């Protein structure tokens, strides 16, 4: 803040120097943060949802490990895992988790151009191109995984 900045309540020049020397009682008011601060703005809510999404990312990791373990155990445990996965509450959980993971991934890739400042032939690569490249790489990786899972290999 500029040194020239002044508080409009400051003492007028004609006031006695003795008055100016006496400091005002300083008892600043410290506002408390509301527990529901994250409902105040759409961006705050989106931020909190993105933070929450990490729980669902962790869930997908656990789910993947359970799947790998079931495959490792043999045909029967694998069938039981599939039956368990088909239960309504697991389906609902996984659908909610998918929505959060998509939110996580999309916001993550949208963030990429902020973090990566690339230059080609002296010119800055446009932010949209950086984001597009990430989404394209995501699409290709997903396509390869889908091809493997759906029996391409």
């Amino acid at each position, binding site marked *: *803040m*500029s040194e*020239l*900045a*002044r*508080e*409009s*309540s400051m003492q007028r020049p004609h006031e006695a120097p003795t008055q100016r020397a006496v400091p*005002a*009682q*300083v*008892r*600043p*008011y*410290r*506002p408390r*943060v509301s527990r529901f*601060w*994250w409902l*105040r*703005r759409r*961006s*705050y809510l989106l*931020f909190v949802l*993105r*933070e929450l999404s990490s729980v669902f990312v962790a869930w997908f990791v656990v789910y993947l490990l359970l799947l790998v373990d079931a495959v490792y155990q043999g045909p029967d445990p694998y069938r039981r895992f599939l039956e368990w996965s088909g239960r309504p509450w697991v389906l609902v959980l996984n659908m909610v988790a998918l929505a959060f993971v998509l939110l996580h991934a999309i916001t993550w890739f949208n*963030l990429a151009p*902020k*973090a*990566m*400042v690339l230059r080609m032939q*002296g010119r800055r690569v446009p932010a949209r191109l950086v984001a597009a490249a990430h989404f394209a790489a995501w699409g290709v990786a997903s396509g390869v995984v889908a091809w493997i899972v759906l029996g391409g290999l």
Partner: protein
Amino acid sequence: MPDTITLQVARYRPDTDAAPTMQEYVVPLRQEWAVLDGLNYIKDQLDGTLSFRWSCRMGICGSCGMTVDGDPALTCGTFLADYAPGPVRVEPLANFPVIRDLVVGIDDFMRKLPKVKPWLVREDEPGVADVEFLQTPPQLDEYQQYSMCINCMLCYAACPVYAIEPDFLGPAAIALAQRYNLDSRDQGAHQRMDVLATAEGVWACTYVGECTSACPKGVDPAGAIQRYKLTAATRTLRSFLPRGER
């Protein structure tokens, strides 16, 4: 357009009040009047006890930041006509202790700012008195947007991380650190790293992005922070490489 508009102004008198209260003032509504003009009208014509900071009236000094209708804003660049027919709520900047009425304490920011050494650090020169540091336009372009910061602290008022974690270095301090880190004349990036690449530095930021939205000068503190995260992470990974390959 009506002739007048009501300003609901937060008042806090530390000697008598336990918490801020709102007081209403009716001020003339003119096309060219900013919220700051309305506050100065109150100060000059209606209530001389109202306290607020201001200086340049042209978005340069960064003194008149307040919360206008819930959003952090420079009151010299926020026009009353945009809020017609009103009322307009004017409160002190959020996330700072209120000293009086619309005046907030900025000691925390003033303590944090020098930690990032927001000046040109040179290690190979004893002084700059008789040395010219030439710079090309692309080199200037690297950091110029960050040099537009006027320390108005609107970004701190917009940042929920700073509200919850007061130890967070904050958007402006990090953006200003990047202003010098990206300057071709500076050699102090590794010195700033000790402050920036910490839990209270860039890693406290979880990218809400409101600092960038709030900035009245087009600085992108959120971008500066994310960019530095990548720098810090890359440096950490490189430190595991054999010395010759870093």
